[in-house]
């Protein structure tokens, strides 16, 4: 009887630990902070115009994470904050990719114009 009680007690203890996991209240709050920083960084790029969907997702998740923190739902807060971070990072990466592509296209056009001018210059009479 005593060994069974110990085992059951042990199981309950284990499951209690399992529910809380490794996370403490400090970590979710840090993750939320990191998510805020990632969104701020994305805002400095063209993400608001070039990747609005991903940026919006990040904002919504951060808000939900903060409200989860207030509700002491730390696991949920952690998950939402982590997801908000990658959403913001993706928004920024997409925006930077768009900017670089636009620069390349503009340069190509400039070169075409310059080449045309050079050819016309050669053909025109002195």
């Amino acid at each position, binding site marked *: *009887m005593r*060994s*069974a009680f110990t*085992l*059951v007690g042990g*199981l309950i203890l284990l499951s209690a630990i399992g529910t809380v996991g490794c996370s403490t209240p400090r970590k979710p709050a840090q993750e939320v902070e990191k998510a805020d920083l990632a969104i701020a960084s994305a805002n400095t790029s063209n993400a608001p115009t070039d990747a609005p969907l991903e940026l919006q997702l990040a904002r919504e998740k951060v808000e939900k994470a903060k409200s989860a923190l207030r509700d002491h739902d730390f696991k949920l807060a952690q*998950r939402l904050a*982590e*997801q908000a971070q*990658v*959403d913001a*990072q*993706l928004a920024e*990466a*997409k925006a*930077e*990719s768009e*900017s*670089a*592509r636009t*620069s*390349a296209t503009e*340069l*190509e056009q*400039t*070169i075409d114009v*310059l*080449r045309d*001018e*050079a050819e016309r*210059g*050669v053909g025109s009479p*002195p």
Partner: protein
Amino acid sequence: MRNAWIPVALAATIAAAGCAASSNTNLVNAETKLRVAEANPAVSAHASVPLHEAQTSVAAARTSFEKGDAEVRVDHLSYLASRRVEIAEAIAERNAAQEDVKQLSKERTGVVLEARTQEAEIAREDATIAQENTVIAERQAEASALSAAALAAELSALKAKQTERGIVVTLGDVLFDVDRSELKPAAMDDLNRLAELLAAEPRRAVLIEGHTDSTGTAGHNDELSRQRADAVASVLTRHGIAPSRITTRGFGSSSPLATNATSAGRQENRRVEIVVLDVSLPPVSERSP
């Protein structure tokens, strides 16, 4: 001892119940996305570190699933992994485009340099052409001078003289019968030669001036000298020299070369002068009849 196994068996059943799902859609999607990214050479070329992070994320999600973690957890890790694959792809595109920008900048510089070089080249060519035109003009001037010299050489065979008016060929009295204006055959060789030379020098005009000695009336001498000049002119036009190039004049006895007192002098005065003019001189005689 038998009792101890029941909680363990119960725990194992509960754990097994947690692994009820045979697959997780989000995990499979993340793994598929990863395979696509790995197959794209641009991603490993331009975003190898982000790609590696994505691979680690996918592996963590897979491990979590195999371990039997809660679906919420597996879904969450699969979401992170999926986003990290997309991030790797976006970073690869950005870096590839930035490479393009570098290359294109160089190309633009190259095109600008080329255009400037071409402009410089054209300017040089223009200068060379201008120089060549100067040389050509100089050579043409030389050629005119030479052709004048060649002409003069030919005309020396005609016993021509260079004067300030031009080159003067004198046809003597012996080429006409007395008091006649018809040219004798002996004149034809010289006139043929003269016609050929005039054909080769189309810019030169010709004055044909007839002269007599003082024998006979002025009126008669004027008429005779004019007729003789016309006779010479008509030989030249028959050879194809344009009449517009020829001006004839009869001076009568008004312009003697020598004295009319002697026979020899009078013979000298009886002549037709053919003046082949320089190109620049107007085809009008400066001497008044």
